[in-house]
């Protein structure tokens, strides 16, 4: 295919930026897996809900998504905490098959509530900077994506600091490594589980706010992202932060290049195919340890 | 009947089984004993196809079965039970045993009769309608035994079938195992309960830290200094003799 290098570069760079936000979505998922050892099928629906929340913040209250990001993160931390503490935890009683179905049930409930409230039309917000671009050499980078990239890095750093230096972070790591031992030293495991889930959901909320300027919202939008998120998590390795970051970037670039070469529609197939191949060939992913 | 030669299996850097060899002749009851962590279950797993041996060979009735998958080994006539019982929880005892019986026949009525006969033999005749999940430890052990028996094996590998049983239950199950042998099934068993093993087994193998350190009749094993040291620690043999 004869594409001028500037176009390719632009695609790659934009892919990288988008990939970072995908990575943020994946981060929540991989965190929850790494600590609770559950694959959260409700992740996509929660993202949808967060995007709608950001949408409402903008359309009903005039709050810019970038400004709404932090308050939304707080709100969704609370939602995530309650969901894990009151629904997922008690309903699944720790069994793997149960968790699968409970999170699926949750995703059905959330998605259809969104559908009932907002109907199936796609919506988008109008912000003055949505179409802004920044010049980067020969490439034109989308401003919202640049902001997204920067914000993701900030969140990544913040999480790293939290996990390494704070008491909560240490408790989380303890529970992730050795649940019974952690309980024995007095850590409230149910609480930590809920906190972790809350953090994962908060990451989703921030990602939602970052994605809103560039993407349509619809009740199904979460679904599309969730497959991407799962691919990233599996590619990067379940439970690995670095994996989520690297995976996100690889997927972002793959999507951009795929779209460029195969067209918008068919380009999406690259992600699903990568997903299938990783699961078949190396389910632990690039950086993961558990199979 | 069973010839295991120089079998080795390592996990990561740790050699769980190191060049172990053993023989089981038809009609015998042979015991495999050794301190905790000696590698007995790993050896069983390697023989029965649940792990692929890194080295060595397993021959059963003259055929090389090294590394074959478990269901093929079952086909050859050898079946194992599990140390931690694995009942099929949501179905009845009868249905549990039938899964084993179905190995020999596709016919439901036949499998059911077979299952009921095996249950009688093992002493579970009255529990056929109980759910797998509802059984006591002793009953689960019998179920493991019954299920494996129902496949019609010529060699039965029993992994700590007496663990968790009280003395009465042990006596009962020793009787059951004897009658299984008398019915024509050869038995190789891993056991910790010394009394039971020494009264049941005609020959013993002793495994310590992956290596086979002794072989012989229960009486000769009890005198073997290496065995005493394996269980009681270095220098114990000398101390005991003094």
């Amino acid at each position, binding site marked *: 295919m004869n594409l001028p290098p500037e176009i390719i570069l632009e695609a790659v760079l934009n892919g990288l930026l988008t990939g970072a936000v995908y990575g943020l979505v994946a981060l929540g998922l991989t965190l929850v897996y790494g600590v609770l050892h559950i694959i959260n099928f409700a992740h996509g629906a929660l993202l949808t809900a967060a995007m709608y929340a950001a949408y409402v913040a903008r359309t009903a209250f005039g709050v810019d998504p970038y400004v709404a990001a932090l308050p939304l993160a707080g709100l969704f931390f609370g939602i995530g905490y309650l969901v894990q503490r009151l629904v997922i935890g008690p309903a699944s009683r720790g069994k793997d098959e149960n968790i699968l179905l409970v999170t699926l049930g949750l995703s059905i409930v959330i998605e259809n509530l969104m559908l009932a409230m907002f109907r199936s039309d796609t919506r988008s917000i109008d912000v003055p900077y949505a179409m802004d671009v920044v010049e980067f050499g020969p490439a034109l980078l989308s401003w919202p994506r640049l902001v997204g990239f920067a914000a993701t890095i900030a969140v990544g750093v913040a999480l790293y600091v939290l996990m390494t230096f704070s008491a909560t972070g240490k408790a989380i790591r303890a529970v992730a490594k050795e649940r019974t031992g952690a309980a024995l030293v007095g850590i409230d495991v149910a609480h930590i589980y809920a906190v972790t889930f809350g953090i994962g959901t908060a990451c989703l909320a921030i990602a939602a706010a970052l994605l809103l300027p560039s993407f349509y919202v619809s009740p199904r939008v979460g679904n599309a992202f969730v497959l991407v998120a799962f691919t990233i998590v599996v590619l990067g390795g379940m439970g690995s932060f670095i994996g989520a970051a690297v995976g996100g970037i690889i997927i972002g670039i793959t999507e951009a290049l795929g779209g460029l070469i195969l067209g918008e529609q068919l380009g999406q197939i690259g992600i699903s195919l990568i997903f299938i191949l990783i699961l078949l060939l190396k389910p632990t992913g690039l950086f993961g340890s558990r199979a | 009947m069973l010839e295991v030669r120089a079998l080795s299996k390592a996990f990561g850097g740790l050699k769980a089984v190191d060049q172990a060899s053993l023989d089981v002749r038809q009609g015998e009851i042979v015991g495999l004993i050794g301190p905790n962590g000696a590698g007995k279950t790993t050896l069983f797993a390697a023989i029965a196809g649940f792990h692929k041996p890194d080295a060595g060979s397993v021959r059963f009735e003259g055929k090389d079965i090294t590394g074959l998958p478990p269901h093929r080994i079952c086909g050859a006539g050898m079946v194992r039970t599990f140390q931690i019982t694995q009942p099929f929880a949501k179905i009845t005892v009868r249905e549990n045993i039938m899964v084993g019986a179905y190995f020999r026949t596709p016919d439901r009525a036949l*499998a059911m009769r077979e299952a009921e006969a095996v249950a009688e033999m093992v002493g579970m005749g009255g529990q056929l309608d109980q759910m797998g999940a509802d059984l006591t430890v002793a009953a689960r052990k019998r179920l493991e035994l019954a299920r494996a028996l129902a496949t019609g094996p010529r060699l039965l590998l029993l992994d700590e079938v007496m663990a968790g049983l009280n003395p009465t239950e042990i006596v009962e199950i020793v009787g059951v195992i004897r009658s299984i042998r008398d019915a024509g099934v050869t038995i190789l068993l891993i056991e910790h309960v010394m009394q039971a093993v020494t009264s049941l087994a005609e020959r013993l193998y002793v495994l310590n830290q992956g290596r086979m350190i002794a072989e012989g009749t229960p009486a000769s094993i009890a005198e073997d200094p290496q065995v005493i040291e394996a269980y009681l620690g270095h220098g114990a043999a000398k101390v005991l003799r003094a």
Partner: protein
Amino acid sequence: MNRTTVLCALGLVAAVVFPLAAPNYLVNIGMLVFFVAFLGQSWNISGGFAGQTSFGHVVFFGTGAYTSTILQVTWGWNPWVAWPAAMLMGAIVGWGIAFLSFRAGLRGSYFALITLAFAEVFRILANSVPFTRGGLGMLIKSDPRPINFQFKDPIWLYYIALALCVVSLVVAWQLTRNRFGARLVAIRENEDAARALGIDVFAEKVRVLTLSGAMCAAGGTFYAQKYLYIDPSIAFGVDKSVEMLLVTMVGGAGTIFGPLIGSIALTTINEVTRGVASVVPALKNVQPLSLVVYGVMLVLIVARLPDGLTGLFRRKPRHA
């Protein structure tokens, strides 16, 4: 004759007689109940009996729908002949997905994920490939004569759906009485123990998914013949996967009547919410709300009623 047999016979008679007296609107609903029950049963076989939870079963449905439609529209095949061809394709796809996934040792959540991915791949392909007319979808020319597998009177599709449902019930019933079914249950309960007892776990899993794929594909063809239109999101969209799983789980996974009971429950909830919405104008969107109820039911059932609604009918508890 025991209680169950009598109930079944009565049920069958009622089902046969029902459309003769009922208005078309209700006949259509009845048809949907049996059709969804049939699809659910195809999921039940692999997901309920064998315990292999798939989130992408729609891949078989869509394969069936597109196979028979393409054969009909593009190659002029008679739909009755295209139907078994669709089932064959469904079986092949089932075999393929099972072979790849189980060869790689995928279980539980990973298996669920990969089935989701396969369905998505098929959807994207259907959207992009010329012989499926891409996103435009495919229209079957309306010519309601029985030879075309199209009928003027909804009663015929009702009876076909009923027949499919009955066949699927018989298949499930057989699974509770034969070796194959017993082995599937053993695999579900404990794969290692099953292996130790001589069961070729891989082969049986592939077998069951092949069967499930064929059944589900048959449903796809039926659907295409009813609505005379399919497109990638209808044929491969995640909704159908969820529906199949839901009716089975709610009704009782691994039971004979689970999918049927679940289907009846779903339809009832649907109609009730529709009725409520017609009285309370604020609740405009019916469909999503009934699914909300269903999702909640799923969570509750997983938490409290592992045997689904069927568990309410059993006299003796089937689990500890």
